[in-house]
């Protein structure tokens, strides 16, 4: 069926990881590197079969360090690149995620999160890498991280991740978890012409690197990809706008750190997506990823009980939606933060909301299990007088 087609338009009942693989191909992915790991393996398994049919290459690497490095290398070769792993793989990749940040390399990194720390439980989802992906590589930086809540969003947000990576020349995370990765649900793949695909801009040939701005442009510098005679110099060491290493000029050090951060923060309104259903409510549940499904169910139960309870879902966790949370906090009396962990984004949310409303955290009854909507509702009832 549709052997070499890039977009398999149709309606399917498949896993989230399958949808992620199809989203990558639909987005124009040309290179994938990965190392087998539960619960992410189905992504590279699917891509190994499908990607070569569409002209792409899949490399199974010797470890996750090699996976991220070869994906970065392929991105500099001009390919749209992806790597998919789980928490232990992300831990191994962290140094070179910093390399991608510092060299402004477009790339999609899928983290199908599993229960940790350490080897933990491979097949159980726990969204506890959510701060690690924003703060795990050394040094100061910003990252883009998207949080799907369903197999359908594994498809949609994988495409969005590629588009944001290409638009802003940055690595972008797709923060799935073992639940959505392995969940089978309806997935609708639209017609090819209804899928919007973006591509990085590339400098015109004939201009020397010392006359070009290849890096540190908050409005996004064209990417001097290799193999076109552009003679680009790429280093993750402190560099100027031409990519030339400079370890002595404090102004350049300042720009080397600030420009990639500001590039993301200046465009935060374009990047951040929030889904709210909280018109005139007293209580709002803040969530991201899988837990959002329970939040919606709990809101329906609460509304049936005559309570004014709504939902606020972060499709983008990084850059952090500080402004949106602040505005939300000023419209409600209570904010309940739902996360399938011990409260990783809670301090960030509380910092934005506690001035205006009462903020509480609720993890699942048992870590690694999805919140029962009735359990959330009983907590809401305890929270409000």
């Amino acid at each position, binding site marked *: 069926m549709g052997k*070499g087609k890039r977009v398999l338009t149709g309606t399917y009942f498949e896993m989230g990881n399958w949808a992620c693989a199809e989203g990558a191909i639909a987005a124009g992915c040309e*290179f994938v590197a990965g190392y087998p790991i539960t619960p992410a393996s189905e992504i590279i398994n699917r891509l190994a079969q499908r990607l*070569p049919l569409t002209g792409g290459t899949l490399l199974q690497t010797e*470890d996750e360090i*090699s996976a991220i490095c*070869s*994906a970065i290398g392929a991105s500099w070769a001009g390919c749209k690149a992806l790597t998919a792993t789980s928490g232990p793989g992300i831990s191994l990749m962290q140094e070179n995620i910093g390399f991608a940040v510092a060299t402004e390399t477009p790339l999609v990194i899928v983290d199908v999160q599993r229960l940790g720390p350490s080897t933990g439980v491979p097949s159980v989802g726990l969204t506890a890498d959510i701060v690690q992906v924003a703060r795990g590589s050394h040094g100061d930086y910003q990252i883009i991280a998207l949080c799907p809540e369903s197999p359908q969003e594994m498809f949609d947000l994988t495409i969005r991740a590629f588009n944001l990576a290409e638009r802003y020349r940055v690595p972008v995370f797709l923060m799935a978890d073992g639940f959505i990765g392995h969940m089978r649900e309806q997935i609708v793949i639209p017609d090819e012409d209804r899928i919007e695909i973006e591509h990085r801009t590339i400098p015109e040939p004939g201009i020397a690197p010392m006359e070009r701005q290849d890096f540190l442009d908050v409005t996004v510098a064209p990417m001097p990809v290799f193999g076109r005679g552009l*003679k*680009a110099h790429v*280093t993750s060491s402190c560099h100027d706008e031409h990519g030339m290493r400079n370890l002595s000029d404090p102004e350049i050090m300042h720009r080397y750190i600030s420009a990639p951060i500001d590039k993301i923060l200046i465009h935060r309104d374009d990047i951040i997506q929030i889904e709210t259903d909280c018109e005139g409510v007293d209580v709002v549940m803040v969530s991201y990823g899988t837990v959002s499904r329970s939040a919606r169910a709990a809101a329906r139960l609460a509304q049936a009980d005559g309570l004014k309870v709504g939902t606020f879902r972060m499709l983008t966790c990084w850059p952090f939606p500080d402004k949106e949370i602040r505005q939300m906090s000023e419209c409600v009396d209570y904010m309940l933060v739902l996360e399938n962990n011990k409260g990783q984004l809670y301090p960030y949310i509380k910092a934005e909301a506690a001035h205006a409303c009462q903020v509480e955290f609720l993890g699942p009854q048992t870590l690694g299990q999805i919140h029962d909507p009735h359990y959330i509702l009983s907590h809401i009832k305890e929270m409000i007088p």
Partner: protein
Amino acid sequence: MSVSAHPYRRYMREHVRGTTTCPGCGNGIITQAILRAIEELGQDMDDFVFVSGIGCASWIPSPLFAADTLHTTHGRPIAFATGLKLGLPGKNIMVISGDGDLAAIGGNHLIHAARRNIGLTVILVNNGIYGMTGGQTAPTTPRGVTTITSPYGSLEHPFDICAMVAAAGAPYVARWTTYHPRQMTRSITKALQKNGFALVEAISQCPVQFGRAAKLGKAIDMLKYYKSKSVNWKRARDLGEEELRGKIIVGEFVDMEKPELASQWTRLKEELMEG
């Protein structure tokens, strides 16, 4: 006053006026061997991407060479280069880095790249020590040599990098010292023409760190030492263990043909997309 430029200045970025290497370093001899090989083959710098890691040898192409240059994290240049080669199968991807970078922290990538036969030209500069960080023991430091981290003499056995890479399956493996610039150039020329993973190990003097640690004297003394200790493997085959003690076995160890990864991918994709 007329100013004459070095014939290889044309291969270098105009604005780069110097290098970071210490006086007496072998990097200059190796740089020249690389550029001479490129000149002899009549290749353009735009046909290349140079990839390096962290350590003294990584400064050979970066930022000096007027080509696409990627200066990566410690130990990972071969991993980056593997993605580059698969994305740009028509280009020469040359990795230039040291023994610490490629054989210690990056050893896993080295053997796997040789195993999968990805078409890279790897110039592994082996100075037997961590030079840039101040003279620590490397996995190539001979047993008994005192370094700053083995002040009582290294108790460990060094790698034979060429034997390791050959065992991993590389179709081209050679070793020369900086006393052998012509042979080294010839090997780099052959490595560049090899469709496959090609390794040239360049034993190189580091008078500042290794020379001092091993009490080998200045750069010129180290080159004389390489001259007196080097034995071509074809001659070494006939020598006993005692005669080979302390010798540097040089020469071309492997030169064969086997299917290269990026070319196989190109063919496979053509077949799949036609079919």
